[in-house]
């Protein structure tokens, strides 16, 4: 198993996700072979947004995504697609059964510089290497070759004796539709710290590189203990073999391990034999990855928490309290920590906020609105009956 040329990868990813599962994300990755010249690297990026809705066991995701790669300063590949992904998920006896459909509609375009070898009779011959790659052979008759620029300056209608004309670089653009339609059935189960999933799928793809039917089965097993997580998986698929009536079997596998070093830093290793991807059409291959991932930060999210436990100070832990009461004239925080004396809160955009330094222990509290109404938001932690027909919330500060 030859791994070939090593690459260094450096990238970043940003993601925003609403509690419903809808969200947007984007990433940028720079890859470069060590020791090679600056032009040998590639830059890839993608950006997408997804709308997700769920009702009981049914869910629907609508996703729009664009992605692209610039390779060796000569090749530029861009694609965009809209995906519809309905899913139904049922639980039975500890097993989770999922049935998922997927429909992708979009397009791709690739620009690259190719050598054009003028023929001896003065006619232009096809670009060097034409027909030698999956992509070009699949785009024959489909792709729209927009031609290129450049040229030798010779009169194409004149044949002059002498040395062979030099090849010239021309810029060619290929484009085509991007389509994927299919579905999968998956069965998953947690077994304590381990989990198991088997997936069977079938897709019809039009990606301009390897169009046709993809069908097969995946099996994965994972295990997590302490700060370690790992998994192995295998897959066996039949993928288009270059002719409409030919399907080739491809087998793949992966083995990976991840160590959570801190809450923000993790290290991972992965060995993989990938098979041809039906959406991108890129051929499979073997790869080994070693990497570090650093999470720069995490936003609090769309839902503003009633209690947010913050950083440690000399006197205790800083805790923020927040309640939405846009119609209130005054709101006070009251709790064990104030001997149940009202602590006025400050209003900000319909929310009332206050901050307290709390020592270790369980602290009960409630909010007093306009000096007479005791209230606790339903999303507050530790809600309990106070024994007198009202409710308190509580927050625990560990020692």
């Amino acid at each position: 198993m030859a791994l070939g040329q090593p690459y260094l990868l450096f990238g970043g990813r940003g993601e925003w996700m609403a509690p419903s599962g809808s969200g947007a994300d984007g990433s940028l990755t720079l890859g470069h072979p060590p020791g090679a010249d600056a032009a040998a690297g590639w830059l890839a990026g993608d950006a997408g947004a997804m709308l997700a809705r769920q009702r009981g066991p049914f869910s629907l995701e609508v996703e729009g995504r664009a992605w692209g790669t610039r390779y060796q300063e000569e090749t530029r590949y861009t694609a965009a697609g809209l995906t519809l992904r309905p899913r139904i998920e049922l639980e039975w006896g500890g097993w989770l059964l999922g049935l998922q459909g997927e429909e992708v509609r979009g397009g791709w375009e690739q620009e690259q510089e190719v050598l054009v070898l003028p023929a001896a009779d003065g006619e232009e011959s096809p670009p060097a290497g034409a027909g030698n790659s999956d992509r070009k052979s699949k785009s024959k008759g489909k792709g729209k070759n927009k031609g290129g620029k450049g040229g030798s300056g010779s009169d194409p209608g004149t044949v002059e004796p002498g040395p062979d004309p030099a090849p010239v670089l021309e810029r060619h653009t290929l484009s085509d539709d991007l389509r994927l339609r299919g579905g999968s059935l998956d069965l998953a189960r947690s077994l304590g710290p381990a989990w198991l999933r088997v997936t069977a799928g079938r897709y019809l793809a039009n990606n301009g590189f390897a169009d046709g039917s993809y069908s097969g089965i995946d099996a994965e097993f994972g295990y997590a203990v302490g700060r370690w997580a790992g998994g192995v998986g295998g897959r066996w698929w039949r993928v288009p073999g270059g002719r409409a009536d030919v399907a080739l079997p491809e087998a793949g596998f992966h083995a990976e391990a991840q160590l959570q070093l801190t809450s923000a830093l993790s290290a991972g290793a992965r060995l993989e034999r990938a098979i041809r991807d039906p959406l991108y059409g890129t051929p499979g291959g073997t790869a080994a990855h070693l990497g570090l991932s650093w999470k720069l930060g995490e936003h609090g999210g769309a839902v503003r928490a009633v209690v947010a436990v913050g950083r440690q100070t000399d006197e205790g832990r800083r805790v923020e309290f927040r309640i939405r009461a846009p119609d209130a004239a005054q709101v006070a925080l009251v709790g064990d920590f104030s001997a149940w004396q009202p602590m006025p809160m400050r209003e900000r955009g319909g929310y009332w906020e206050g901050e307290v330094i709390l020592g270790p222990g369980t602290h009960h509290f409630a909010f007093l609105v306009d000096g007479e109404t005791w209230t606790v938001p339903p999303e507050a932690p530790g809600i309990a009956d106070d024994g007198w027909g009202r409710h308190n919330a509580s927050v625990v500060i560990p020692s």
Partner: protein
Amino acid sequence: MNFWSRRTARLRPRLTSAFWIFALLAGMMGGAVHARAQNPADLEQIRSRFPAAAARSLEQTLREAERSGLPTAPLVAKALEGAAKQVPPPQVVAAVRQLAGDLRRARTLLGGRAGAGETIAAADALRRGAPAEGIRRLSAAAQSGEPLDLTVHVYADLIAQGIPPDAALEVLAAWRERGADPKLLREVPTAVARRVREGASPAAAAAEVGAAVRAGQSPASAGKGGSKGKGNAAGKAQPGGNSSQKNAKSPKPPKPPNSKGKGRP
């Protein structure tokens, strides 16, 4: 005066003095114990906010709790809460006595090694409806350095959300396996509540959050996007996808040309 009368008559002043000295010492010791049991500031607040009869009842409950080795701070706080909420004093006295009973039961449940913080949290959890057996199992399986009071608090939160006790214990077991980070633990009830709002059954919601935690992810990631299903976050079935990354969508580069100039894509 007979022999005994003469002897006791000579001893009587000494006995009388000894008696008073002993009584004085006993009173001082008892008073000292009394003063150590109750913070004067707490007593002052109780006396200032309650009628004399209710204040005496509350002080007696505090003394009994202290003699039993129970934490008294939550009892004082409960009394002050009742005063703030203008609850009739007899009801405050009853509530404080009930809380003392809850603390006693919690301490018995946790065993003799439990500290005040764990005892208070367990009493809270029992009052909120958490099953005693679940609290006992959590305590028995607690790891060294684990904030057991927070663990019990979150357990009670999950029970209050309708999560079956075993499912709640399973989520907490997953959290322990991944390093028992308190910050992560606080996110569990919020994540479970969100999944339930989205239509998942309480048991399924707990299972998803537990699976997300086991996979090293935030509890908030449970059930989102391509992370449906238990275990691994990547739910996509497309072959060749990177199943170790959630929603891995980074594009694969085109097959590289061998060198510049040859032009083979």
